[in-house]
């Protein structure tokens, strides 16, 4: 099976996936009741009327996690090509990868010690 064929299949799958997820909502459009009233369309707040919008400024902590994620997910992309050719590249590449992962681990320890991984 060629890769072009596989990617064509994936492309078609995504198109059909979108149709698949649209159909239930579109189908329900013809069956569902439409009896709206004023209290039905307020935001849910455990019975009270919401006073303010929840769109507030967010804690910077969320972005720290996002940054850590970004760094590590790019590192994974660097590790996978080596892992693919691990058997042919031999021990020298293993040593180099050990250094790379060591630097990565130091970065993790730095973030850990600095409290960047604490959820407050």
């Amino acid at each position, binding site marked *: 099976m060629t890769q072009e064929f596989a990617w064509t299949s994936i492309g078609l*799958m995504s198109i059909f*996936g*979108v149709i698949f*997820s649209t159909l239930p*909502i579109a189908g329900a459009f013809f069956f569902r009741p439409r009896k709206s009233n004023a209290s039905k369309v307020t935001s849910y707040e455990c019975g009270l009327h919401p006073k303010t919008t929840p*769109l507030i400024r967010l804690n910077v902590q969320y972005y720290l*996690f996002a940054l850590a994620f970004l760094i590590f997910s790019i590192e994974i992309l660097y590790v*996978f090509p080596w892992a693919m*050719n691990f058997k042919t590249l031999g021990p020298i590449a293993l040593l180099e990868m050990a250094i790379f992962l060591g630097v990565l681990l130091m970065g993790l320890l730095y973030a850990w010690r600095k409290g960047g*991984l604490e959820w407050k």
Partner: protein
Amino acid sequence: METIENLFLTLKALALMGPEMLLPTALFEALKTPLGIIMGVSILLVIAPVTMLFLTWMERKVVARMQKRYGPNRVGKFGSLQPFADGIKMFMKEDIIPLAVDPLLHTLAPMLVVVPAVMLFSVIPFGKNMVFADLNIAILFIMSISSIETIAILMAGWSSRNTYSLLSSLRAAAQVISYEIPLGFSLVPVVMISGSMSTYGIVMAQQEGWYIFTPWGFLAFLIFFISGVAEVNRSPFDVAEAESELVAGFHTEYSGMKFGLFYMAEFLGGFAISCFAVTFFFGGWLDPIQQLTGIAVLPTWIWFLLKSYVFVFVLFWFRGTLPRFRVDLLLNFCWKYLLPMALLNIPLAAAWHYLPDGIVFKLVGWVIGMAIIFGTHQAFTHKRLKRLYSAYDRPDSSLRTAPQQG
């Protein structure tokens, strides 16, 4: 035996015979490939909702039995028609869109959450010659596709303009992106040893022995499965929809079929994670009896389904047994335990590869590897994590001082 094994391939060939007779030969040759693909897509899109219906019934039945209840037993024999009744109910429900929400994003989010869950099915090797798209970078595909879910959850939470939804979606986003890191690193040893990133290739590489029976495979499986459960927001990692504190999480403002789509994505994601755990560590569709004795007992796709439903059952078992994680403990567990363990696993796998052949060496390597894993686990849990996990020991903890009486 052979006929059952090749059931789906035979069905596909039969279905292609109709157009072959009706259409001119040249046109048929041109249309053969797209027709084949569309047939594969339609089979997958039939399997997905059927799986989801069955899983909802199974979850309710299993969890009920664990809690000494009967579960659904009114609609149909053993409540087997219950999922259909639920589906019809959701279909007939009013679609409430509160005034405050952003209608476009609010409608798009449930659609977006289902598409990646369905697309994950396209790289699962269900049996011999039964993978829909044999990508050579399937592992990267899985990781990238499953992180689309984050965007959908953020869209749902943000567009709802509801405090509970927003809080839950931010938690879910932090959780999903964090657990993707150990998930990715736990698959690195699998790629190293099998030398392939296609799901089919990994299964073929396990003909010499399943990866679960190696020390690194054992650790990688545990990390993969735990992160996978967290990735699809299932219990005990379901802080995103913690009903005891956040009402219903990011789908608080959803009703009717839109809520149904979120539900569907969760179940399909759980099933896909079980399938991938089987594929990467438990030999996929390989027949264990045939591997040991050379006699094929059941078709490969039945073996695959049997193995994956074991893990689906484990998912429900988690739900029935484990209490929910607190959100800071959840993230500590990911970054300060799973990630270092996953990094440790890479040199372990390399050492395993350089072990000389022979049963004695493998046995000694196995014992040493397991000792390293267990020792690291002990070091983590006893010295550092116990202290880090305990809220009472943290200097800034408000729990440290007992509340004043009176």
